[in-house]
Structure formats: structure tokens, C-alpha cells
């Protein structure tokens, strides 16, 4: 496989968008673990404020982490931060999220055309190999708005 850009660039690219000023990612404590070769891995810690009432993270946080990781996998595949938007998302819940556990999502961008990218991935409890959920989805490429690495954020 050929890599037009070294892995480091992709990690830096990811941090530029996912690690800085994003209010939701900050609220969730979402962290980029790895991003390379159309694959992305992200984690989030357990948080009482995002729990489900049973002292486990709410399933909505898992969907949100999976959706976010899908985006990062696509950025890696496209090697750019062109604007993308979810077209459709399917999540199958295989089992309940364990109490007190953080979450990990691993997603691969399987393929893409000029206008649509296709992803597939899994969600896990941190430190556990049994998947909690699977995700598949498709995303539109070059949607509304500037690229995410654009310097002029005042456009928002």
C-alpha cells in the first residue's frame, strides 16, 4: 500500500479538528487514539453527566462516538478535511454498556466515490474485546460549508 502522506500528518490533521475547540468533543472527552490508512480509533471516558441512570454511559454517547469516528476514518481515507455529512447510519446494539466503563470506537472507511463515502466499524467498552455495537453508514462528501482545516473560522 502506498501512503502519499506520512501517518504523522494524519494524526496532526485529526487533532486540528477533533482535539481543539469542539464543544461536543470536549464535553464527551473524545480522544483520537489512532488514525491511519482510512481507519480511525477514538475513545471517551466514563462520565456521570452522560450516564443512562444505571451508572453506565448512555447508548446515545456510543452512537455519537461511532458517528464521530466514522467521520475521522473518512478524513483519513480522503486525506483531507473536506466537509462531510452523515447521510445514513445504522447501529446494532449487541449488548448493554457496562457500568462505569469508557467507550472505544474503531471504524474503517471501506470505499468512496466522488460524492459518497462508506464506513463500517465497531464500538467496545474500553479494555474489552467483545463488541458492544456495530455501525455502518454512508456520508456525503463536499457538503455545505468550508473545509474543517480552514483558518477562517469567522465564516461560521
Amino acid at each position, binding site marked *: 500500500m502506498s501512503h502519499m502522506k506520512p501517518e504523522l500528518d494524519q494524526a496532526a490533521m485529526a487533532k486540528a479538528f477533533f482535539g481543539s475547540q469542539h464543544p461536543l468533543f470536549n464535553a464527551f472527552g473524545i480522544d483520537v487514539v489512532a488514525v491511519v490508512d482510512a481507519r480511525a480509533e477514538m475513545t471517551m471516558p466514563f462520565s456521570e453527566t452522560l450516564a443512562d441512570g444505571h451508572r453506565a454511559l448512555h447508548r446515545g454517547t456510543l452512537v455519537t462516538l461511532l*458517528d464521530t469516528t466514522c467521520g475521522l476514518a473518512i478524513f483519513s481515507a480522503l486525506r483531507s478535511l473536506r*466537509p462531510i*455529512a452523515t447521510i445514513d447510519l445504522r447501529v446494532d446494539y449487541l449488548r448493554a454498556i457496562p457500568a462505569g466503563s469508557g467507550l472505544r470506537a474503531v471504524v474503517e472507511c471501506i470505499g468512496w466515490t466522488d460524492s459518497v463515502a462508506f464506513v463500517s466499524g465497531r464500538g467496545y467498552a474500553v479494555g474489552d474485546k467483545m463488541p458492544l455495537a456495530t455501525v455502518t453508514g454512508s456520508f456525503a462528501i463536499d457538503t455545505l460549508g468550508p473545509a474543517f482545516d480552514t483558518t477562517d473560522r469567522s465564516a461560521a
Partner: protein
Amino acid sequence: MTGLVRPIPDCTEAAMVLVPAVPFHRFLGMREEVVEGETRYLMDFCENHVGNPLIRTFHGGVLASFGEVVAATHLARSLARVELPACSTLTFDYLRPAFAGTICAVPHIGRAGRRITTVSVQLRVENKLVCIGRFLFPVGRGSLGGSACPAVGT
């Protein structure tokens, strides 16, 4: 129209009508109103909901989560259950950008089967359809039901 509508200053201080014991519902900032006998579920944008900060749209995961909680709440009420059922599969179509504003969710039970119940939810912004969600709930024996959340407040 009955008087369940309350203004919400922001997500964290949301005056919750629904399941105040569930922290994530407070994060979403859900509220509800009854219009001509039909319950509508509402979610007001706050900064923590943002997906694309450059054009200020809701995050896709927040929209899907909201849809799922609405579907579960609607189903629990229709079954007169006190616990929110857990869906096994969600499928979510994003039809338009959901710009910062108030999202209105209208749930509909497609079919209440012996094993599986399908609930669809339409999400609208200013009466424009922005998302359609479909949620499958195992309701028979041995289902995941009841594990999602505790008591539904009414």
C-alpha cells in the same frame, strides 16, 4: 394545547419533563408539549450539541440519540411501562442539514409485534423534515427491554 411547554435556557439547566433521573437526557435538553392530544418532543440547540461548528449544525449522533430516546419514551408510554425499553437496531436517515434551532420529534409505532416493535421518528426543524429514524425494539421474552433507562416521568 396543555401546559407542559417550558422555556429552556440551556441544556444543562433544562427543566426536564422527561426522565429527570437520566443525566444524558439532561445533556440533550429534551422537553415535550402536547398539541391537539399528540405529544411532541422538542430539543433546543446548545453549543454541546454541535457537529459541524463551521455551519452550526447538530451532531448526527445527538440527533440519532434524541430520536432513540423519543422512540423509547413513546413506546414505554404506549405499553404503560415505567422503564424505557432498549432498541436493538437504529437506522437513521439524514435528509437535510439540521441547523442550530429547535428540533421537533414526532414518533409513530409502525407495527407492534409479539417479538419486535418498530417505531419510526420524524425530526423536523421549522416544519421541515430533517431526519427519519427507525428503531427496532425486542419486546418479547428474553429481550433487551427494560435495560435502557429507569422510570419514565410523566
